[in-house]
């Protein structure tokens, strides 16, 4: 299943609900464009809801890292919410788990931006 992306606002935070796969040719470009679009609109608080991401490959990992560094360079904070076991395992293996600010529940994640 390809990546689907939907955004919503919660207390000034843009929550990006992602569903499907973040892989080369199946989502990494869409994710890049979605983040670029949000930052271009001046969004400073971005929360990627990964609860329905069941697969990520090295290209998808690279896209997450790029989204993180692009956001940081533009003065925005990009955080991750609700990692599935598979995604969490891959982030831990690649030591990226220590790079991102990661939350298990949305309320705590939203509160962290205040």
């Amino acid at each position, binding site marked *: 299943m390809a990546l689907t992306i939907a955004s919503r606002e919660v207390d000034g935070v843009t929550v990006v609900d992602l569903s499907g796969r973040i*892989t*080369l040719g199946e989502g990494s470009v869409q994710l890049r464009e979605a983040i670029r679009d949000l930052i271009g609109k001046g969004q400073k608080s971005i929360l990627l809801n990964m609860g329905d991401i069941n697969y990520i*490959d090295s290209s998808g*990992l*690279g896209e997450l*890292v790029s989204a993180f560094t692009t956001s940081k360079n533009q003065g925005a904070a990009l955080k991750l919410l609700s990692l599935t076991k598979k995604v969490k395992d891959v982030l831990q*293996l*690649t030591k*990226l788990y220590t*790079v991102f600010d990661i939350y298990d529940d949305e309320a705590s994640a939203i509160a962290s931006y205040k």
Partner: protein
Amino acid sequence: MESVSEVEAAADKMAAEAGFDEDERFRLAMAVREAAVNAVLHGNDYDPSKRISASFENNGQSLIITIADEGRGLDPETLPDPLAPENLLRGTGRGIFLIRSFMDEVHFRQLHPGTELTLVKHLAPAQEKS
């Protein structure tokens, strides 16, 4: 990229038939996908005139998957460590690391032109065929 998806699906089917659980199937299919992506992208440089080949074998003790490209060749010793602090925020360079992490053995062979990767996953004793 269709060839990558086909190779990934074949690896997943092979792992399922060999009796691997869902986590192991995911790891094996992902390693094979990464190898196929590397072959298309970094090996063949997205050149449509170049092909990748894949073979799958269950010899009763291991699953052996071979992926080959027709590119310039790859020296695995020159790849930077993606876990090094200075490389952690790089956007690329994690594919071979993931392959090595998820498989029991990974072998590189230069084909002149091209690179052949052989990925090996050992079967648990209960999975082995007599």
